[in-house]
Structures are given as structure tokens and as C-alpha cells.
């Protein structure tokens, strides 16, 4: 380039204008959550708010981990995986089953996580891959998913019975931190949940597979032309989805203390809520969405009865889809 005017040096240097939209969504979210805590503390007292926040963080662990797989599968394969909740159930019941063979709870859980991941992988091989090749419609994918959900849930029920079953752990002892109480097992759930979320977040951000998965969930065509082996990445997504679902199921069973074969299906809509809150296909978003849904459901108990907790989750889901279908972090096309 000769004779041209270097525009960069000529143009007056101006500080970039600060606008409201430039503030990252994560900062907005943090501000809203902190404001909510302060407002609720005024209304219901800081101890009650602190206690429900603690409970909410316990719940956030399994919601976040459950929602990651759901959002990756939805973002990449356009499958509303109605069988995803039942993978949580499978993880919890495999843990009980392996525990019955004599293994302690947490090692049994680790085996269950591996087995569920392999199961999800096998399902892709047997069902989802052939369906991708046949270029199936949303309706077909939906029908297969609900069929799969029924088969998984009722096979578990066939062998384990439909009754509520305790986790067989010490669910009574609790620890006190100042004015707050937390069950010892729940504290463990909180620690494992936070550690797992951090591990998933770091793996997504820094590993090659993590980057490939995010690229694929964001834009399949673009990921393909960038030379990503999409077939392998999709299989990897199913492994991750299965493993995290099983872990979420184990954490749920430990946090609540007892489960029945329907629990995965019942929290599935809360997982959808977390995925939609974070923006479909956005794995970080799903983690944040899990935090929001866990906190929102527990905070709601400050104002309405505990039994309305699920309704709070569904209401958030509907409101989000109607007013902010791209989620708090954006992404995706929501209108037809």
C-alpha cells in the first residue's frame, strides 16, 4: 500500500463509548442475584435468605450438571432429549445397584457415571446416528426421545420397583456454620457439585475437545468447515452428556436422601429451564442457568409453600421462552 492515508493514525483517538449493552451478561446476572439477595433479606431477614441460598447452591449443582448435556445435545443435534432426565435416574439407580454388590457409595457412583456415559454413547451408535443419516424431522426425533425415556424409566422400575428408595447413607448428621445448617451429605454434594462444575468449565474453555464441542454446539456447519471431526465430536458430546447426567442424578439422590424412578423425568423441565436460561447450545450458559434455577426454586420457599417449587421452575421456563428465548447470554434463533 503506497500513497494511501493511514486512517488509523489520522482519526482522532477517542475512548470507546461505554454503553449499557457492553456490560457482560454475566455481570448483569451477578448484579441481579445480589440485588435479589439484598431485597429478600429486607423482607425475610438475612438468616432465612442465607439458608435458602445455601440450599439453592446444593440444588444448583445437579441442575447445572444435568443441563450441560441437554443443551449440548440440543444445540448440536436439534434433539429435545426427553430421555435426558432418565439418564439421571439411571445414574442414581446404577449407583444403588453397584452399591448392593458391596462397593461404597462414591466409588459405586464413579462406576455408574462411566457406565451411563457408555450407555449414552451406545444409544448414539444404535439410534441417533442412523436417524441423523436419514435426515429426520423434529417430530420423529421427539417421538424417539419419549419412547426412549419410557423404555429407560420403566426398565429401571421393572427391576427396582416403583417405591421410594433411600440412598442408604447417613442423611441425619448435619453441620452448622454460624446460624446456617447443612446436612453433612448435602455439604459433600455442594463440594462435589462445585468441583465438577469448575472442572467442566475449565475443560470446555481450555481443552481441544472442549473447544470442538463448543464450536459444534454453536454452529455445526461452521465447525465442519473448520476441519472438526464432527462425528467424533458428537460421540464425545454423548459421553459427556451421559457422564454429567449420571453425576447429577447421584448428587440429586444424595442431596434429597431418597429417589423413585420418576425423579429424572420430574426434574427434566427444570433442566430445560436451565438450558433455556443460558441460551440453547451454550454450555457455560447452562451452568449459570442451573445456578439461577436452583437459587430461584429455593428462594421461592421464602414466599410460597415448598410444594410450589416445581411450578416456579416451569413458570420461569415459559416466561423465558416468551420474552427472552435466546437466554440471558444470547445465541440461537427462536422464532419460526
Amino acid at each position, binding site marked *: 500500500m503506497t500513497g494511501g492515508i493511514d486512517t488509523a493514525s489520522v482519526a482522532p483517538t477517542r475512548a470507546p463509548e461505554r454503553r449499557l449493552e457492553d456490560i457482560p451478561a454475566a455481570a448483569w446476572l451477578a448484579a441481579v442475584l445480589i440485588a435479589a439477595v439484598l431485597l429478600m433479606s429486607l423482607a425475610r431477614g438475612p438468616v432465612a435468605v442465607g439458608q435458602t441460598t445455601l440450599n439453592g447452591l446444593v440444588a444448583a449443582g445437579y441442575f447445572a450438571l444435568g443441563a450441560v448435556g441437554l443443551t449440548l445435545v440440543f444445540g448440536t443435534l436439534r434433539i429435545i432429549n426427553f430421555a435426558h432426565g432418565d439418564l439421571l435416574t439411571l445414574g442414581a439407580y446404577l449407583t444403588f445397584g453397584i452399591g448392593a454388590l458391596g462397593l461404597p457409595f462414591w466409588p459405586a457412583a464413579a462406576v455408574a457415571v462411566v457406565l451411563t456415559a457408555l450407555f449414552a454413547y451406545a444409544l448414539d451408535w444404535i439410534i441417533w446416528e442412523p436417524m441423523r443419516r436419514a435426515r429426520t*424431522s423434529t*417430530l420423529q426425533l421427539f417421538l424417539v426421545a*419419549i*419412547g426412549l425415556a*419410557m423404555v429407560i424409566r*420403566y426398565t429401571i422400575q421393572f427391576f427396582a420397583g416403583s417405591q421410594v428408595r433411600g440412598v442408604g447413607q447417613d442423611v441425619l448428621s448435619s453441620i452448622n456454620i454460624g446460624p446456617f445448617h447443612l446436612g453433612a451429605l448435602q455439604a459433600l454434594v455442594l463440594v462435589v457439585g462445585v468441583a465438577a462444575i469448575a472442572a467442566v468449565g475449565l475443560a470446555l474453555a481450555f481443552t481441544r475437545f472442549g473447544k470442538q464441542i463448543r464450536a459444534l454446539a454453536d454452529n455445526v456447519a461452521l465447525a465442519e468447515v473448520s476441519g472438526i471431526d464432527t462425528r467424533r465430536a458428537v460421540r464425545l458430546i454423548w459421553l459427556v452428556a451421559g457422564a454429567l447426567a449420571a453425576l447429577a442424578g447421584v448428587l440429586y439422590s444424595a442431596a434429597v436422601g431418597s429417589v423413585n424412578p420418576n425423579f429424572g423425568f420430574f426434574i427434566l*423441565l427444570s433442566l430445560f429451564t436451565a438450558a433455556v436460561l443460558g441460551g440453547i447450545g451454550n454450555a457455560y450458559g447452562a451452568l449459570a442457568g442451573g445456578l439461577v434455577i436452583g437459587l430461584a426454586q429455593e428462594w421461592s420457599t421464602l414466599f410460597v409453600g415448598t410444594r410450589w417449587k416445581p411450578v416456579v421452575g416451569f413458570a420461569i421456563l415459559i416466561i423465558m421462552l416468551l420474552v427472552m*428465548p435466546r437466554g440471558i447470554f444470547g445465541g440461537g434463533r427462536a422464532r419460526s
Partner: protein
Amino acid sequence: MSVFDLDFWVGAGVIAGIYGIFALGLQLNIGFTGIMNLGQAGFMCVGAYTMGILVVDAGWPLALAFAAAIIVAVAAGVLVGLPSLRLRADYFGIVTIAFSEIVRYVFQNAAFAGGNQGVIGYDAEWRAFQAWASQRLATIGLGEATQMPLLIAVWAALLLCLVVLQALQVSPWGRVLKAIREDEDAAAALGKNVFAFKLQSLGIAAALATIAGFFLAMNVTYLYPSEFDPSFTFFGYAVLILGGFASYGAVVVGAVLLCTLTEGLRFLDLPLSAGQAGSLRFIIVGLVLIGLSMFRPQGLLGSDAEMQLRA
């Protein structure tokens, strides 16, 4: 139990009829309009509870309460559809299933709906009619099965709904629906109000859900929330794929096939507990859904040319 147990088959026929009416609404939505309604059980719940509560708590006559229930359910359909029908198909599905779960939790927890005890005592008028009808039927040799009047009523209603829907489908209104299913942008370009047609389709489906809910209520004698969980909607879709998409006649076939499949399992002398036999029914329905969707997505009687399911 004998395979020739009349009471058993009459009971199974009643259930098939209820599923038939229920799934006609789903067929109108997905098969003829292309909207994925996953909240049909919620509309049925709204309708059945409205009827039950009006009779028990407000003392309304059954017929009047039933008419009011249809109006309330259609209003619920319009209310759900108004904001959500503009969403993408899969998001619309999620909104409707979330609606259906909210409805179920509200009736489970709200004091006016009797909570988990449910609503009981709305069917005195129907029992009286059934006793009278049984006597009449006995004179022509059909009086042995207690549920016979219900069987006749539910199948008469099913066939009536079928005829009405079929007539609507060959009308200009029905052709617009199909145009929307095939290409809603093209339908809109021709000046058709796509949104209004979709809303009407959803409203009619809610009315059909209420009719199914009426017969369900008469069949079970009391209403409780867990009857209306999303599994009911999913069974409705199993009816559709067993019969075939985009055909009302196929719904009847699908309903009969589904009930034969699930109820007929009782005759296999399997060494299973009652709970396990119940689980096995769901497993079989699940396998049917997976297998047909993979290998015959238009359903047994559906035509691939009528409704394109492969992209």
C-alpha cells in the same frame, strides 16, 4: 382371567375410545396443522377438573358443567397459544408441556381442587343414566357388562368427532390448515392469517381433550392430578404413530391397536408382579414409538406422500 371376559373387553374398549378422542385433537394439531402440542393432557386436566368442581362445589347439572368445561378448556388453549404459537416448533412444544405440568401441580396443591385426594362425587347423574340405559340394553341382550352404556357413549362421541373433523378437513378451512402444515410462509403470502388458523386448531384440540376428559372422569369415578401427567400426551402420540399421521381414521385404528397391545398383555401368563407387568406395558409402548419412528415414521396407515416427515 379368561380371554372371553366381556367386562374386561368393554373396559378396554372404553379406554380405547377415550384415547381416540384425545388423539384426534393431536392429529388435528400435528397431522393437519403442523404444530407440536405437548400439552394435551393439561387441557384435558383443565376440562375434567372444571366439570368436576362445577358439579361438586357449585351444584351445576352435569351437562351444563360439561359445556362450561369445554369453554374453559378452549379458553386455556387460546391463552396458551396466543403468546407461544409464534415460537419455533420445538420451543412451542416445551411451552405446552410446561403449561401442562403447571396445571397438574396447581390442581395437586390448590385447596379448591381437593389436592391429592382429588375430586369425587360428580357422576351421580351419569350413574343414574347408566342404570337406566343398562336396563334398556338388557332388553336387547346387551346388559351383562356394567360399562356397556359408557362404551356405546364414548364410541358414539368418537365417531361423531371423527365425522365433524373429517367434514372440516375437506372444507376450505381444512385446506388452509394443510397449506400451513406444508409451508406457512406460502400460506401467509396468500393472505391467510396463519396465526389465527393455528390458534383455532389448538382451541379445537383443547375441546376434544375435554370430551376425552369427560369420559375419563366417568370411567374412573374420581379425578386426581397424576392421571393427567405428560405420559397421557405421549400415549396419544403413540396412538398417532401406530395408526398413522394426517388421517383421522388412522387415529381410531391406532387407539384400538394401542389398547390391544397394552391390555392384551394381561393374557400372557408371565411370572411377573403387578408392578412389573405395568412397567412392561410402558416399555412396549416405548419400543413401539422408537421402532416406528425409525422405520415407518408416517405410521402404519399413514402415507409418506401426504405428510412429509423426512427433511
